[in-house]
């Protein structure tokens, strides 16, 4: 668990010898630290921890909505079921396969667009920023309805454009397992406004002197990108990466609406969180739904720890100690 900011600790240890007792100065610093994070600690204890523990307890019970057999602790039965549940593991596989396509796009595209929108060569930056932001504001269900229209085999605009370009048999986006992931990524990319904002905020925080200095050193666009922009943006990219991982592992809402949560075509949209959601709300088996959720929690935790661990190699914090 503590691996997440071990680099910070390591550096700390190098700065000065470790002490068992905190000095008065360090105690004062700790006091301020606790004080500032106290809203979260209180909120966590009051609003978050209870429901989390409750859901963990669910996994050791037979709780469900109908409760035809009396509520009881069943030990590890749900976890045993999970081990032998082919559907759950297949769904986890589907989720990872989709992540392979979704993650690079959802990380890189906002970064590239933010670079473009921040470039001195672009006219009317403010206007473009607003326009790229627009779809992000659209409520989820309306957005899905729009995309169902856009991607329809017969009358969708995407296929109309493809036909106009000379493609005779354009893909059946939402019903063909070969093209469903690109279709879902396309829908996902539509909310890219958020990613652009985060990246723009990051770019905005890079001191311009650094670029001036690089220029004097004769660095061109790529040199500046590699030696200034990317390192300085690494904390922001790290943030988008972690959130994108959490997002993609919990992905299910779009297929829930578009394909009615059936996992069609051919099981390609049977995402883990979809299976979880259906167990929880549709099949009303809260015990097993919670078990699936805690498995996903553990998977996410492991993946995130790996990412956090790798971050000490590539994330540069100007203000950390």
């Amino acid at each position, binding site marked *: 668990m503590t691996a997440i900011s071990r680099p910070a600790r390591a550096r700390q240890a190098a700065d000065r010898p470790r002490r068992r007792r905190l000095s008065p100065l360090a105690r004062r610093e700790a006091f301020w630290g606790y004080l500032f994070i106290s*809203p979260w600690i*209180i909120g966590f204890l009051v609003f978050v921890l209870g429901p989390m523990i409750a859901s963990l307890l669910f996994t050791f019970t037979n709780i469900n*909505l109908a409760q035809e057999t009396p509520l009881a602790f069943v030990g590890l039965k749900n976890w045993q079921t999970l081990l032998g549940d082919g559907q759950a593991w297949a769904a986890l596989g589907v989720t990872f396969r989709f992540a392979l396509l979704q993650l690079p796009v959802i990380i890189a595209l906002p970064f590239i667009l933010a670079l473009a929108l921040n470039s001195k060569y672009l006219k009317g930056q403010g206007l473009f920023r607003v326009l790229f932001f627009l779809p992000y504001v659209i409520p989820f269900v309306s957005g899905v309805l729009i995309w169902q229209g856009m991607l329809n085999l017969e009358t969708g605009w995407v296929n109309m454009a493809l036909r106009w370009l000379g493609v005779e048999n354009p893909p059946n986006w*939402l019903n063909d397992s070969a093209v469903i992931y690109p279709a879902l990524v396309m829908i996902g990319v539509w909310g890219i406004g958020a990613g652009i904002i985060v990246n723009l905020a990051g770019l905005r925080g890079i001191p311009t002197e650094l670029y001036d200095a690089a220029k004097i050193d004769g660095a061109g666009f790529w040199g500046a990108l590699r030696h200034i922009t990317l390192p300085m943006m690494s904390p922001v990219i790290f943030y988008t990466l972690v959130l994108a991982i959490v997002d993609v592992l919990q992905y299910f809402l779009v297929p829930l609406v578009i*394909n009615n949560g*059936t996992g069609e075509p051919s099981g390609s949209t049977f995402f883990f969180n979809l299976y979880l959601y259906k167990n929880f709300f549709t*099949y009303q088996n809260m015990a097993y739904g919670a078990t699936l959720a805690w498995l996903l929690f553990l998977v996410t935790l492991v993946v995130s720890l790996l990412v956090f661990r790798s971050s000490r190699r590539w994330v540069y914090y100007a203000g950390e100690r």
Partner: protein
Amino acid sequence: MRATRTTAAIAVLALLAAACGGSTPTTQPASGDTAQASTPASEPASEAASTAASPDAGASGEASPPANTPIPIGGSTAAPGQTEIRWYCCLGGGDAPEQVDVEKRVVEKFNQSHDKIHVTFEAVPYAGANDALATEIASGNGPDIVGPVGIGGANAFHGQWLDLAPLIQQNSYDLSGFPPDAVQTYKLDEGQVGIPFAIYPSVLFYDKALFDEAGLNPPPHAYGDKYTMPDGSKVDWTYDTVKQIAKILTVDKNGKDASQDGFDASNIVQWGFEPQRDDLRGMGAYFGGGSLVGADGKTAQIPDPWKAAWSYWYDSMWKDHISMTGPVYSSPDINPQDYPFFTGKVAMSENFLWSTYGLGDLKEDWDMGIVPSYKGKVTAAFNADTFRILKDTKHPNEAFEVLTYLLGDAAPDLLGAYGGMPARTAQQQAFFDSQDQTFTQKPDWNVAVQGIQYADQPNFESYMPAYNETLGLVGSGGKYTTKWQTEQGLDMNAEFESLRSEIQAIWDKQ
């Protein structure tokens, strides 16, 4: 330094205080009630939880007309001494804004005329209705009455319904006005879980203008009547007959129909036939009543008539082209309201009587004909809606009183809004008369009345093990429902077997 620190500490504490009383500012904009705004948030709230009657909230909620009800802090709108009964709406129909208006008026009327009971109306849009109800029930904060809900919608919450038999007896509630079969419909393993309210027999809707244009005779209006083909011959009104004339009524953009050479199946502009495609079980039931559950209650089976019905539908889409394929059906540019018959581009459609809600767009062009027969037997799949009481209700007597109000005094208003045919035989004519004011061409309602006696037995929405999970295969938007609509060239017999084994696998998990 010290001063700054103290200031900061106070600031943080003030922030937390503000957070704890976070509601206070929110009550001000809409509420002029200052006493209420200054009350600490949690106090009346917990009172409201224990007695379901917060004094503050109740007073303000009752004293002023609904239009400018202040925002109360407590969750209840009931006055002190009143029993709050929550009516949860919209697991199926009843969530359209116009319907919600009628429902609200019904509730208002009840509340004005009753001192002891306060009805709180909970209109949840369909998109979240199932999840929200599951959340409320699981959290021990379930509503008292749920409806309108169909047989299938109620089975999604199997085990949650109150057996009304003791209340019916205790209140000597008169059931004699209903057809006995209708009362029997709600007598299930959970008990007498419902009292009949709205019934929806099946009919064959047809578009007169499209029949005229093709020079065809309209479908027969009385069970037993024959159909007159264009050549003058009289034939039985069977699904084969329907397919034959549906081909003539299926037209491409060049004006050629599906019975002609050179028909362009990729550019169809008008379709001959639309089945009830919400639920595979319902679609099957038009060819004969049956069940996926074998006699032992745990073996999955597929009734032969259902296989025939599904093959008929599959061929209708992919071979005969008389029905929309999935991609066409799901195109918002062709079928924006999710029911193609409303667009005027479908000549015949087999459906429940509730489909009248969107027929206004067709103006005077539609009427009802009889459901065709399969192997000499007519089966008109049957739907019914009613209100039910949840078994966890804390106030069964009061809930029953509200229930009988909804089924009684409020019924004409509600049935009108839902387009629901009254289950009470005596009220049916009045309902048809009121519908005739909307549909001035005076459709032949008698067709619907005749359809009741051909209802499917057992009802296609009857309970089966792992109801909701199984529905994921055969229900609206279910796996096979979707697959057959979107994939051409399937071996249907193999599909039936794979469906059966998937169902069996789900049931075996139980």
